[in-house]
């Protein structure tokens, strides 16, 4: 059963990474690059929204993504009993 469970652990990890990387892609390449023109028509405090994502928002989002990943993986490690002793 140990082998099976390790494979499930890996699948869960890959699923988590895929989800987070989709967000990573959307906030930077999506909001900051591809959709920057339409988003710039929206104002967010004194910023045009697309510009804000490209120079500020994406960086904050990256930080949150890493924190979420580190936290979720610690849980996953314990759940599948593969954490370091």
């Amino acid at each position: 059963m140990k082998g099976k469970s390790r494979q499930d652990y890996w699948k869960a990890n890959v699923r988590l990474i895929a989800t987070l990387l989709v967000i990573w892609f959307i906030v930077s390449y999506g909001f900051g690059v591809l959709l920057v023109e339409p988003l710039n028509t929206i104002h967010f405090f004194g910023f045009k929204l697309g510009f804000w994502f490209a120079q500020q928002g994406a960086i904050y989002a990256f930080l949150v993504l890493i924190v979420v990943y580190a936290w979720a993986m610690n849980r996953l490690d314990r759940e599948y009993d593969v954490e370091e002793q």
Partner: protein
Amino acid sequence: MDIQLLTYLFVGGSFVLYIAIAIASRVGSTKEFYVAGGGVSPIANGAATAADWMSAASFISMAGIIAYSGYDASVYLMGWTGGYVLLAMLLAPYLRKFGKFTVPDFIGDRYYSNVARTVAVICVIFVSFTYVAGQMRGTGIVFARFLEVDVDIGVAIGMVIVFFYAVLGGMKGITYTQVAQYCVLIFAFTVPAIFLSIMMTGHILPQTGFGATLLDAAGNDTGVYLLTRLDQLVTELGFSAYTSGTKSTIDVFFITAALMCGTAGLPHVIVRFFTVPRVRDARVSAGWALFFIAILYTSAPAVGAFARVNLIETVDNTAYESLPQWFRNWENSGLIAWTDKNADGEVQMSAGDPFKGAPVYTGERGSHGERLLSNAPTDNPGEVYIDRDIIVLANPEIGNLPAWVVALVAAGGVAAALSTAAGLLLVISSAISHDLLKKQLKPDISEKGELLAARIAAAVAIVIAGYFGINPPGFVAQVVAFAFGLAASSFFPVILMGIFYKRMNKEGAIAGMLVGLIFTFSYIVYFKFVAPEMNTPEHWWFGVSPEGIGTLGMIFNFVVSLVVCRFTAPPPAEIQQIVEEIRVPRGAGAAVDH
């Protein structure tokens, strides 16, 4: 106390600190030399990674580049931070579990091939030397500007300091000096940024001041947003709006991707994650690293915008005699030049170059006291040349900050350059002593012998880097694209597939690395050196500039590896077992002691 003396005190004091740390963290084993014994706390490693990562260019030049290119500079902001997400999720934890000392080590073992290892060593050396020459030069320039010593002497002083802690302390010495250097550089960057933000918008945080309304000279709210005002000012001068770009969307996309994947694939960054005790620490540590980097990277665009508004409002259409003192100071240092084309005694700004090339002063003074130039003027109305580095270097004076802040900026610039140089030199030395000598040429070398070889390699690398710092090849500025492009097109895909695709074999990996490398290398060399006159969007493939071509090289690498791999034998069972092992955290402690 005068600025000169304060600067000597601050820079000298920081050197004493670095050397003291180096002596306190002398090492006795190769494991300590290569990966600091694997016992660095995740927060310390995060700070060390941030200092390792943020070079003289990040510290001195980035805010200026943003100030002059507005939205276009977003590629650097996103590219140089987004890579940490990839690093945290796709590379760092598994490489930590693998528990070896260097990036070529992983590639050589995972792809059971000394050919792969050697290709990796060559890439490491090329990428790192490209980068380190610029750092040594940066150290020299900071010395020259703040301490009024010769650039070459500045480089030599930098070499001696790095020699001290890199050769003595190896990774352990470097790690703890980098932590100290991070503190120096972030303090030096944020103090002027905060003062500037308060002065311009009344906000303490530059990050919120960036989106706030401007204050007038008396401190009353004008009700006009900083960025609105900036867009208006630059368009009046004939530039395109600050908040919209001039690069094509596809180029912005490709450059950002090349910088992100290049960041994640740079050996001197990856190797920092070998120094933490556990897999979970590697994940957390990437978060700390990005946090420490983000403090500077979210302030820099604000600083750029504040400084640009301030610069235009202070200088444009102002009589030369009534300009603040800093304008003349930096004119005397050769970073500002003014030529009164319309003879009205006032300084006019405009898009485009005021005259051809960098300023050449005749040594005489004009009727207003300005330094006269021998450059041929252009026919646009702009009269003033302003070096972009002014944005950071002159900030303390522009904001009327006390003299000690100027001294602090000098110490910060030196810290940024030295910390990056040291990290790169260590990667070069370990690639030679460990991956070439120990793993290939002389496998029976003793622990002591390998440590000695590592120290000699580090010393030789410092001398070569110093040589390039003193005699910079003309192309230093242009080869930055190399480091990221090559890291993205060679290391990133190979390491990624080594972890996530068990079936990837040595044939696929070697073929992919070579194709990615040769393609990217040729494209950059062609457009930067062979036919620079062709370096315009209509000649680029798919409109991708040499800065962004690493992304295409990376795609070729992936495709070629996957195709070749399908037609060749799968990797041996024990290699597949290694891949299984690096995917789970348990047992990381044991793996490192080999």
